[in-house]
């Protein structure tokens, strides 16, 4: 049997302790406030708007615990957090931006990666590299040098022209170049009381429609939906139309 170290269990304690991250829900679908205490960053759930992009990036970068990941363009840090969770407990994320940030399990460097490129110390050591830069093409040659063999690079760009230039640059040293776009459609659930079509109608129309109804239903398992209230889902009309393009590529394997 495996030893179970209770201090390593993620399972939630039943009472809220000091320093915990607490999210307050007002109703079943609205958050009231998010209070983040230092030290609990890794327990934080990623921004819902981009969860589809983040989830897909983590799977397509083939991140598993123990990986070394480089990120360029820390931005709000929402991806950084998710990258760190994916490589925890033994891996490490090195993230670079113009501005200084702070986090756990993560090393943040201030650097103009687009111009300077990556520090040499990571050369050939990165399992994966993620770029979120206005001109990804400039950083790609340096990023490719950091990758291990068969390592995966991802570049996120909102505009197709950035994708076109990045893909062009990738072709020289990378392979398996693929561009994706991912969106999340959400649905709202409503209890829907169907108007009782027949009931309203019967008085004024007379018996004719009922006759016809019987004819068409004859011998078949017609499903009547009228009467009882039904729960139904429909797409939310206010949808996010675009977040960005995700371009993935692998370092060519030299055999």
């Amino acid at each position, binding site marked *: 049997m495996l030893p179970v170290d209770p201090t390593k269990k993620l399972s939630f304690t039943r009472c809220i302790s000091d320093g915990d991250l607490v999210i307050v829900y007002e109703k079943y679908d609205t958050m009231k406030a998010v209070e983040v205490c230092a030290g609990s960053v890794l327990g934080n759930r990623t921004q819902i708007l981009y969860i589809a992009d983040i989830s897909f990036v983590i799977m397509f970068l083939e991140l598993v615990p123990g990986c070394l990941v480089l990120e360029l363009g820390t931005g709000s840090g929402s991806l950084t957090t998710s990258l760190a969770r994916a490589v925890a407990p033994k891996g490490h994320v090195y993230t670079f931006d113009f501005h200084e940030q702070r986090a756990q399990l993560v090393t943040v460097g201030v650097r103009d990666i687009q111009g300077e490129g990556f520090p040499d110390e990571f050369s050939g050591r990165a399992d994966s590299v993620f770029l979120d830069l206005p001109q990804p093409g400039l950083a790609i040659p340096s990023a490719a040098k950091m990758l291990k063999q068969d390592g995966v690079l991802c570049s996120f760009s909102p505009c197709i022209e950035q994708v076109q230039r990045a893909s062009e640059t990738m072709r020289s040293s990378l392979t398996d170049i693929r561009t994706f776009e991912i969106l999340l459609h959400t649905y709202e659930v409503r209890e829907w009381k169907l108007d009782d079509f027949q009931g309203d109608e019967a008085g004024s129309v007379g018996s004719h429609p009922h006759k016809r109804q019987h004819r068409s239903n004859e011998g078949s398992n017609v*499903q009547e939906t009228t009467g009882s209230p039904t729960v139904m889902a429909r797409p939310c009309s206010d949808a996010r139309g675009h977040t960005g393009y995700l371009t993935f590529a692998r370092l060519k394997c030299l055999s």
Partner: protein
Amino acid sequence: MEISESKPQIDSSENPRSTWDGCSVLLDINDGDRLVFARLSAGAKLKIGNKNCSLQPLIGCPFGSFFRVENGAEGPYLAGYTPSTEVNNVQEKGDGQSIDEFRDNRALVDNNKAQSLTGEDINAMRQQGATGDEIVEALIANSATFEKKTVFSQEKYRLKKQKKYAPVVLMRRPFTRSICEAYLKKYPNKIGFLRMDTLSLLLSMANVSANSDVLVVDMVGGLLTGAVAERLGGTGYVCNTYLSGSPYSMDIARIFNFGDEICKRIVRSPLADLLSVQNGIEKPATQEAESGNMEIQSNDQISSAVSMEEASLTSESVISDPIPVSTSSPVIKMSKPAKLGEKAPQEIISLWKENGFSSLIIAAPELDAWGFVKETLPLMSNSASFAIFHQYLQPLATCMHNLQTGKMAIGMQISEPWLREYQVLPSRTHPCMQMNGFAGYILSGTKILPT
């Protein structure tokens, strides 16, 4: 009424490109910020910003014209104006900007209090006869932060001030395209969230074309009825049917500039009347009386000339918050649009009985689809096409299943259109960040001879 009658007959097939007295127009103020349907007349007025402007200068102008508020000797008036290509570009950059700013604005310090021009200063400029453009330039010159902004932020600032101090009015033709898009933007619930692409598919899938006899269940304010009538162009018929009680509103169909020829092809009939004839039984007199009743019940729709005026006023105000103010009596000054949606005459109903309708479109997003379909489908000609719109998938799935098992229709398909608009600009091309994710669902198919 005399004014209206003396105007040349507006035949939609002539496809007029300029307005006339009594013409219905869509006014787009500040690039979609405000959308107003109005009927042009010498007395019609519209409040733009804090100024009441006569719509009289718009009469006789081509659709697609731009207007701006100018200060004349007798007060503010609307004057034609040709926007520069530059301004057009600024407008189009609107959406791209959000991205660029998202990427670069960490260093941007935007302080709106850095404006040294006061409201009093601006009022003084106005009284001295300054144009809107001049005020905008003055605001820019007196902004302490304008020079520090990025190029995109500068354009955004300029556009914001232009909208406030030099609003632009674009006059559009009220066609299905523009009417549907305007309602979707401002009052989507009034048209059951029916998107332009969904509506266009309903027309195609139901095979609507010249000389069609189209049966519609239009619970989307008359938009469907109007769209079908626009396609028919004065041929065939669109028959707006309804359950007992009052007919469903056809107000939106009145926004179209339909001439008499088209209006006569828009009729209504309670479902009971179509069904009784369908069954080969002559309508009893009691039902006639009942139908007469209904016509009176629908007081806000098609009864008298006075209520027509009210209806047209209502439709004008539907989209815009402030109702266009007419200083003189609307009954006298405003032209009467053509009458549409009369009760279907008995001889036409008899013809439908003989031939069946050639198309069926149901847009009753709140009602059970199957209830309507099983009642109306037998009224169709064999091989007639139908298209049913619904906000939920499940009622259409049930409906399709029932039609399959009942061997009532073939070629059935449930579809959901998916529409995406793009920003296409040099180095800034991407799908628009906001989209309308709700298209609704369509069940389409072909009616067959019941076996």
